[in-house]
């Protein structure tokens, strides 16, 4: 394994299978978001988790404003991980913006990917009237950036480590400190801009790898109509409408998420 990439992207590999599932987190989080999902796949697959440069426990020194000014830079992270581990026949599971990042990676190296699982994806978050409703106007995104700024005032003054009594996962008491509050607010802001101002609609028809679209109900970030749009423009795509509400079904409704992914992968075989 390429040690540089391994530490740069904080790669974690486990599981008893041989076919790799590569889990890619979305904006604002890190690889920990997959913890409610991974156990179900450990026995049959080789699970690969990583943090994008600038997120989680990645190497912040490796961050380059130029490279990560758009989603291609993040797609290169995915390809770097694949190359470092020499992954082939990859099942890529990406949440939110990582769905598009996975699509872009598959365009550059389609031979590496077997399936793409797109959790709450959107090719373009901004509205493009009259034909396309991404869900947001520029003003909304600017307000989000403002909200983030104000919260990072809080984070940066949040000095004392929090010891949490967490009955679910007591081992993760340090997580807030390490994965979220310590994230560089400037990098997060740039990631937000790269995410929410991106428009990758024209890339959809070029994708050749088969994909599963998991569309949540009442998703404020990826509305149902966007899921349909994705399905219409992605060749060999399946669209699953979830019972799960919100934008994070892998956290809020892990069982349904697991079941849909397993069904898709089983049917694909």
């Amino acid at each position: 394994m390429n040690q540089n990439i391994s530490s740069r992207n904080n790669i974690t590999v486990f599981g008893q299978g041989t076919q790799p599932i590569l889990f890619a987190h979305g904006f604002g989080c890190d690889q920990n978001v997959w913890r409610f999902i991974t156990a179900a796949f450990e026995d049959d697959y080789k699970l690969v988790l990583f943090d994008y440069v600038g997120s989680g426990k990645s190497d912040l020194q490796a961050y380059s404003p130029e490279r990560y000014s758009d989603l291609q830079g993040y797609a290169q992270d995915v390809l770097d991980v694949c190359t470092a581990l020499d992954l082939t026949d990859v099942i890529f599971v990406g949440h939110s913006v990582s769905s598009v990042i996975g699509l872009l990676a598959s365009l550059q190296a389609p031979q590496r990917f077997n399936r793409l699982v797109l959790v709450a994806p959107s090719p373009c978050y901004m509205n493009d009237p009259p034909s396309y409703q991404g869900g947001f106007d520029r003003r909304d995104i600017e307000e989000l950036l403002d909200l983030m700024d104000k919260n990072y005032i809080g984070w940066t003054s949040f000095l004392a480590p929090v010891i949490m009594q967490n009955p679910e996962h007591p081992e993760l008491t340090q997580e807030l400190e390490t994965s979220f509050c310590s994230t560089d607010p400037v990098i997060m802001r740039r990631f937000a801009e790269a995410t929410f101002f991106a428009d990758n609609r024209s890339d959809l028809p070029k994708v050749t790898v088969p994909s599963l679209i998991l569309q949540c109900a009442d998703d404020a970030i990826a509305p149902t109509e966007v899921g349909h749009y994705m399905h219409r423009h992605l060749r060999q795509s399946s669209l699953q409408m979830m019972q799960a509400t919100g934008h994070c079904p892998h956290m809020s409704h892990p069982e349904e998420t697991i079941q849909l992914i397993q069904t898709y992968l089983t049917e694909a075989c």
Partner: protein
Amino acid sequence: MTCQIDELLDTAPCGFLSFADDGTIVAVNATLAALLEYEPYQLEGAAIASILPIASRIFYQTHFFPLLKLHGKVEEVYLLLRSQQGGDVPVLINGMRQEQAGSFVNNCIFVPIHQRIQYEEELLQAKKVAEAATQAQNEANIALKQAQTALELKQIELLELNAQLEEQVQQRTAQLQQALNFESLLQRITAKVRDSLDEQQILQTAVQELGLGLGVEYCDVEIYQADQTRVTIAYESPRPLTAAQGWFLQITPTSPVVKLAFIEGEALQFCPMPLNRARPHTHQLVILACSIYDDQGVLGDLWLFRQQEESFNHLEIRLVQQVANHCAIALRQSRLYREAQLQVQELERLNQLKDDFLNTVSHELRTPMSSIKLATQMLETNLKTLGLFADESHAIARSFKIIREEGQREMGLINDLLDMARLDAQTEPLNLATIDLQLFLPYFIEPFLERTRHQDQRLSIEIPDSLPPLTTDVSYLERILTELLHNACKYSPAGAAIALSAQTTPTALEVRVSNSGVEIPPTEHERIFGKFYRIPNHDPWKHGGTGLGLALVKKFVDRLGIGIRVESGDGETAFVLEFAIASARV
């Protein structure tokens, strides 16, 4: 007590809201509902997104909920809530996950921060301004730094450019200096080889000057033999320990020698060659070879040897080629001069032979004839004394007369032949003198007056008063006029008129000898000047002659550089001598 706590919670001075993982609001206290302008029952069961503006919904999905879910609690998260009337309500939220009846709920308290958020906004704004100022300062610093760097780079570039230019100027100056040096070297060599007709000296000069001027290790010249099968190393400089000079290289198929005869005009630069038989000391040296050639072929080659690290530049090659060209010219001149010298020697030898012949003729022919003449005169005296000549019809008298006359004729012939030979050889220089024809001609004609009177002929002389003085060889002129008058007397019948006259024309001074009673047909005009030519049936006085008279006249005329023409018609024949006015004026 429990009921009291519940009531207290409902009326607590902060908002309380409990929601499930799927975002459904499970419980809300009256304080928060009032803050959001709802009745509590309106919110219970609703989605939490309904009290969040869009930006807060994103933040909830991307930050708030994942944190709460992963870490079990959040503290002091800032969010903007949306009231039923659409107003913004800024709040700080502390939240905690708790298990309740077998499933998890997320309990949160909401503290409105209207005033504080204003401070924070001002703080944030101030921070942004400060950041912008810092950013601007940084950018300005960076720009300044970049400008300084660019300036320094530019200065370095300029310095480098300047250095390059200076180096170029120096190189160019060095090249020019070298070219000038070579030019003067070439001039020196050219002057020396041009002034010399000695082949050895030419080659020595070229090799020596080239060897010193180009600072080579070794330099020599090969000269091809005439049959082009051998080369000789003719001269070397500086003289090496093992002199190759005079070494002959036999060019045979089994023993090839680098021969440049086939590459006229080219200079060849060689890598070091394997051991060179003729020049063992040049082993491992770089070689420049240049043929010495002209339009008649290759004369030889110039060979220059230099250390392996160096080579010959184009200026040096051109210089060697030019020297080779000058050598070719000089060698060719030298060889022509040598041939000319040999020819001069041969001519001198032939001339000597001719002189010897003339002397021999003079001695071997004239001496016996002089003895015969002398003996004849003595015999005539003796015979006269004996009275044997009293009767001219006596056989002795007749025989004696024949002997005397034929002897004189033979003497005349020999003299004419000798004159002819001398004139042919042109060995005697002209003896020029200036004369007045008015004085010369009457004096000259005197001997012929008696003779013409004797033959009943009329000899007249006609000379204008003003004639330019004439510069010529008087003895030759006398011989010419004597011969012409002699012929006039000889070939004119009795009663004929013979005239000697002189006159000037615009281009010439003419001296004319004419006689009447005789004509020479035009076809004969050219032929009468040939040796031994005689006009047939044209000797009324039976004088005889050698047939060399007019041929001699023509020789004398040519020797004097004057013209002669024949005019014949109307019973008169005239020979006209033409002295060009220019020469007449001399």
